[in-house]
């Protein structure tokens, strides 16, 4: 049984962080707690996640506000999209 959250970064966020996917274990209680934790680990990433147009998706659905996170969920940070 997973106890962490899987974090995915897309587009320029991947270049800022130097990684594309990692697991944060144990799972933070909320999206904002996850953001704070990531910013503590990497200040530049924290700033990039707060950048204009960056959206968060929880389990592949855009998550407005500050949703609760559960163990085993997937959080993706999506910078402005380029289109096809």
């Amino acid at each position: 049984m997973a106890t962490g959250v899987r974090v995915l970064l897309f587009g320029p966020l991947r270049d800022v962080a130097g990684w594309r996917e990692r697991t944060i274990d144990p799972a933070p209680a909320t999206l904002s707690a996850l953001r704070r934790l990531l910013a503590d680990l990497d200040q530049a990433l924290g700033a990039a996640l707060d950048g204009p147009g960056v959206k968060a998706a929880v389990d592949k659905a855009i998550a407005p506000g500050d949703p609760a996170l559960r163990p085993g969920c997937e959080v993706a940070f999506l910078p402005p999209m380029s289109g096809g």
Partner: protein
Amino acid sequence: MIRLSDPPIDPGALLTGFLEGRRETGAVVSFTGLVRGDGGVEALELEAYPGFTEPAIEQIIRDAVERFGLDDCLAVHRVGRIAPGEPVVFVAAAARHRRAAFEGADYLMDYLKSRAPFWKKSHEAAGARWVEPTPGDQADLARWETMETR
């Protein structure tokens, strides 16, 4: 339907497959987009979010089918690293009559170019840069948003 493809795509084969087994369709319009090598572009790198990107494009397809009364549509989009001259996207729209098929394919491409969840990096002689929709792409989209539905 939408499919993301890591390997190169064959637009001729896709069109042939799309044409098969039709009795009611009178018109099929297809479009193939190629990577342009101008401006020192050495490759495009397309990143999708599997499981998120496809449903977003399926919604664009459903909107097109409903708006233009299409029979169905196919969209196949490359992901990964794509060299100049290679197809990056193929779309086809089928309808009873040609006008709807032309407009459906046009609409699909305009929405794919600006609304589909892809992140695109342009690898150029001078370095790599992330691409955002151009003002031209936004203007193309605005055509449909101001146009009356027929």
